[in-house]
């Protein structure tokens, strides 16, 4: 009779519905807003991973955070980890005593607990090790302690005379298991004197002191009663709802900022949204200045008048209700904002004065500022960028004097007070100040746009003056760092040179710039290894084109062609080739080409000669041979002018016409004829294939 092993639950009978819920709260001094979301997730992951590893499964988990607490709620936890049985095979019966002793030690058993079993190899000892299940509380205490001690805070600290680390001082640990009858039991633990319990507290100012809780629901309800909204998403929603409603009621709209919303939701336990007006005297400041100042310093949302585009009001989120409905708080915030904006206005006014007097004070100041100790001052850098801009200008159809004027002032705002205070406004302030100085609009635009593109998704300047200065700036940087041998290595790229090279690539391609990069490098910082820098560009180009689906081998096939430092031409060729190779004709032609090339290479190796010219149709014996002659003549006639006109599509389609004759040739003709003249003539014919196709791209580089 065979008996199935009994289910595990039957081994340890207990109440069927005994699946407790777990509630953990780590209550501390204020946790930085930017860390709260990840910390809640880390708490969930570390606790649940630890419990599951120890055999405690659960039905559901949710984590929350407020400025003062991380909370984890687990539902339907096993009350006990299951008993685990493990069978181990030991030494043979009669084995040396030492071997048996060692086995017993490893298994943690005594001799009388071993079992002898007959096996084909004789009698052998077997041990059955039973790891009994452990109560949930015991496991939770261990896992929670390990989690707290090893928590992955981006930055943690010690406090008082203790050695425990947490993001800020940790004050209390709430840890309870609630059974389905609603009875709560504290999971005991003590971490450096902080004992777990069943109590917490609500809002710092609106709460009513410490209170005990019996379950997650009880906890959430009592927190709300004591003015804490536990769920950050609920706080963010409430803030956004209320903010947009208040703005809407005044015919205004809140400038959306998800990052700010998340941050603000992490600064309050009980959000109260207040809208206030910006003092009239500051409304003349550029919108970006208002927005940046309000966001960076005060964590205010900007409120815009959709009709004028002007920012007229602000939204602040307080952490409490007051008897006067926030009037005092709002007045205080307004006053702080006015002081901040007075500063911004001070900068703006001073800066405008310098701008209107020609910005010389700024450009002069840049000669005191070092760009890099081996590459000189910012002023020297600007001189180089200016000269380079003049050189590049004709390529983009820009007047050299205009390019020079733009390059000269493009970085002047680095000396301005506003940019000193808000570095993120560099460029933008440059535009405003150039406009104020009465400079041409192309020049003002270049001040802002010449930093672009900063990333792969950033817009590329298309205004010719902006593109000219942007190119000159980046090429000066690249040739400069190449000249002093500070190239990127591995993951280290402290001067963002990869980004600069990608910027040049995108500027060139998206503006259809036609220029030899090597020539341009020659006009950049002296002493850069142009060939090495070009190959760096080619590597960046491959990465860039990979994203649009162009294979690296297709690019390689084009890189070995002349003019490979003209990126526009190079990419045009690569795109045409890539498209061609995706067609049936392209695929087959490639095979035909490779076959021809292989036969030729072998014959050349064997004969020690190069078959490169002299194929004559008069030695052609078969129709297929003759047809190929004719097709090659035709293709050559079509490809030459197409290549001349850089019409790669036309060249490729002329190549495509070769596919059928080449296939037919290999089908019907044996190259290695006994007649040496015929053989040589055929090899020379094959070399025409190599030569004609090779003029379009180096197909030997293409894989497959």
């Amino acid at each position, binding site marked *: 009779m065979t008996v199935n092993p009994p289910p595990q639950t039957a081994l340890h009978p207990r109440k069927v519905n005994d699946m407790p819920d777990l509630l953990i709260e780590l209550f501390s*001094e*204020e946790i*930085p*807003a*930017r860390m709260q979301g990840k910390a809640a997730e880390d708490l969930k992951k570390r606790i649940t991973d630890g419990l599951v590893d120890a055999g405690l499964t659960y039905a559901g988990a949710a984590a929350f955070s407020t*400025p003062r607490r991380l909370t984890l709620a687990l539902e339907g936890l096993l009350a006990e980890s299951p008993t685990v049985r493990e069978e181990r095979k030991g030494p043979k019966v009669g084995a040396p005593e030492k071997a048996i002793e060692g086995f017993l030690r490893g298994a943690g058993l005594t001799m009388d607990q071993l079992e002898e079993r007959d096996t084909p190899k004789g009698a052998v000892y077997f041990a059955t090790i039973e790891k009994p299940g452990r109560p949930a509380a015991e496991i939770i205490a261990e896992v929670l302690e390990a989690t707290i001690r090893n928590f992955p805070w981006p*930055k943690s*600290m*010690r*406090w*008082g*005379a203790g050695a425990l680390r947490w*993001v*800020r*001082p940790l*004050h209390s640990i709430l840890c309870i298991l609630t059974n389905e009858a609603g009875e709560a039991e504290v999971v005991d633990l003590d971490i450096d004197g902080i004992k777990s319990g069943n109590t917490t507290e609500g809002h*710092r*100012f609106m709460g009513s002191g410490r209170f005990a809780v019996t379950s997650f629901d009880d906890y959430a309800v009592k927190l709300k009663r004591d003015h804490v909204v536990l769920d950050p998403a609920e706080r963010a929603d409430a803030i956004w709802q209320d903010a947009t409603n208040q703005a809407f009621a005044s015919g205004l709209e809140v400038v959306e900022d998800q990052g700010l919303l998340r941050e603000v939701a992490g*600064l*309050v336990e009980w959000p109260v949204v207040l809208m206030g007006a910006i003092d009239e005297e500051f409304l003349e400041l550029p919108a970006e200045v208002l927005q940046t100042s309000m966001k960076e310093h*005060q*964590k*205010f949302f900007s409120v815009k008048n959709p009709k004028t585009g002007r920012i007229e009001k602000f939204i*602040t989120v*307080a*952490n*409490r209700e*007051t*008897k*006067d409905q926030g009037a*005092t*708080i*709002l*007045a*205080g*915030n307004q*006053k*702080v*904002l*006015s*002081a901040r904006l*007075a*500063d911004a206005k*001070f900068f703006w006014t001073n800066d405008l004065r310098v701008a209107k007097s020609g910005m010389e004070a700024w450009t002069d*100041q840049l000669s*005191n*500022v*070092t760009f890099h*100790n081996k590459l000189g*001052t910012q002023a020297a850098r600007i001189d180089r960028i200016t000269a380079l801009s003049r050189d590049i200008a004709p390529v983009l159809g820009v007047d050299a004097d205009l390019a020079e004027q733009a390059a000269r002032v493009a970085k002047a705002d680095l000396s301005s007070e506003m940019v000193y205070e808000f570095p993120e406004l560099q460029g933008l302030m440059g535009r405003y100040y150039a406009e104020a100085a009465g400079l041409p609009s192309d020049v003002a635009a270049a001040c802002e746009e010449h930093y672009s593109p900063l990333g792969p998704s950033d817009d590329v300047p298309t205004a010719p003056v902006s593109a000219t200065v942007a190119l000159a700036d980046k090429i000066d940087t690249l040739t400069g760092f190449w000249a002093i041998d500070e190239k990127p290595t591995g993951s280290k790229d402290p001067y963002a040179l990869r980004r600069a090279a990608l910027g040049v690539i995108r500027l060139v391609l998206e503006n259809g710039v036609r220029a030899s990069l090597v020539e341009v490098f020659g006009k950049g910082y002296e002493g850069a290894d142009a060939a090495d820098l070009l190959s760096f560009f080619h590597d960046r180009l491959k990465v860039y084109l990979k994203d649009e689906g162009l294979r690296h081998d297709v690019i390689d096939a084009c890189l070995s062609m002349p003019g490979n430092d003209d990126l526009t031409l190079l990419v045009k060729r690569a795109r045409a080739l890539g498209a061609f190779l995706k067609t049936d004709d392209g695929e087959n032609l490639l095979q035909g080409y490779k076959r021809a090339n292989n036969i030729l290479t072998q014959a050349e190796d064997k004969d020690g000669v190069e078959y490169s010219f002299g194929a004559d149709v008069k030695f052609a014996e078969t129709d297929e041979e003759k047809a190929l002659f004719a097709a090659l003549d035709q293709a050559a006639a079509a490809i030459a002018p197409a290549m001349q006109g850089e019409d790669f599509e036309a060249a490729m389609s002329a190549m495509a016409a070769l596919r059928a004759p080449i296939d037919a040739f290999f089908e019907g003709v044996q190259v290695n004829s006994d007649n040496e003249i015929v053989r040589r003539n055929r090899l020379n014919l094959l070399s025409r294939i190599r030569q004609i196709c090779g003029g379009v791209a180096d197909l030997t580089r293409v894989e497959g």
Partner: protein
Amino acid sequence: MTETISKPRSFQEIILRLQNYWAGKGCAVMQPYDMEVGAGTFHPATTLRSLGSRPWAAAYVQPSRRPTDGRYGENPNRLQHYYQYQVLIKPSPPNLQELYLGSLAAIGIDMDMHDIRFVEDDWESPTLGAWGLGWEVWCDGMEVSQFTYFQQVGGHDCTPVSGELTYGLERLAMYILGVDHVMDMPFNDPDGTIALSYGDVFKQTEEEYARWNFDVANTDVLLKQFEEAEAECEKILAQEHMDPKTGKRIIMAHPAYDQCIKASHLFNLLDARGVISVTERQAYIGRVRALAKQCADAFVLTTAGGYDATAEAGA
């Protein structure tokens, strides 16, 4: 916070209340350090006393100078000379936040009407080789204090950890007194026979120093003084611990640290004159930090720094 506390009426009353409050909480109320410093942290009662194992509790006003912040007394709340109120307690007590909030109540901030927030602000002083974690404390969106748990000073781990509170007195007082421009703030009793405003006391000096800081200070002299302070600091620390005259072990951590403070202020002046480039800046900061570290190294070898002479003798 049901008790209602009367509102202070002048700048000095706020200072007096803070003095009384922290004296009542067991701090030694100390006097300002008699040197030019950029912040209250530079006072040896904070910098040096946060080092070593001996408990410490001090509170004091510290006049502070930030030459680059000069606005000729015109900006409503930027000054090149201003006051900080500084509290340092080692080890940091578990109720430091509550103690701090109590001090706000003591100077007339009604917690029921205002929005007090602890906003992340990790403090770092590259010149002191010091850092800590904490917050800037906001009252209705205004930063009223800096609250820091010191983790490292002068390159030394702080064990135990000190809790440091720094109040920007002018801004805080303006807020409490409801004044929009710092120069309009009552300095003493506004109903007294000789009522003085902050402007009566400081408007002229702000102008004078702003002009000197920005345009007149002789940079050659400043540079030379910087070099001298640096050399003197190192010379002091290079002395034998044993004083040949008294036969006592006297490590001159404080006199050396004075030179470090001097160098730091001279650097700030040079910075305001705009003669320090970005790369040089780092080098200067590094030089001051090197001095601060050496002073910290010296201080922890002194009795106040936790040095135990008997343990040394036994070893």
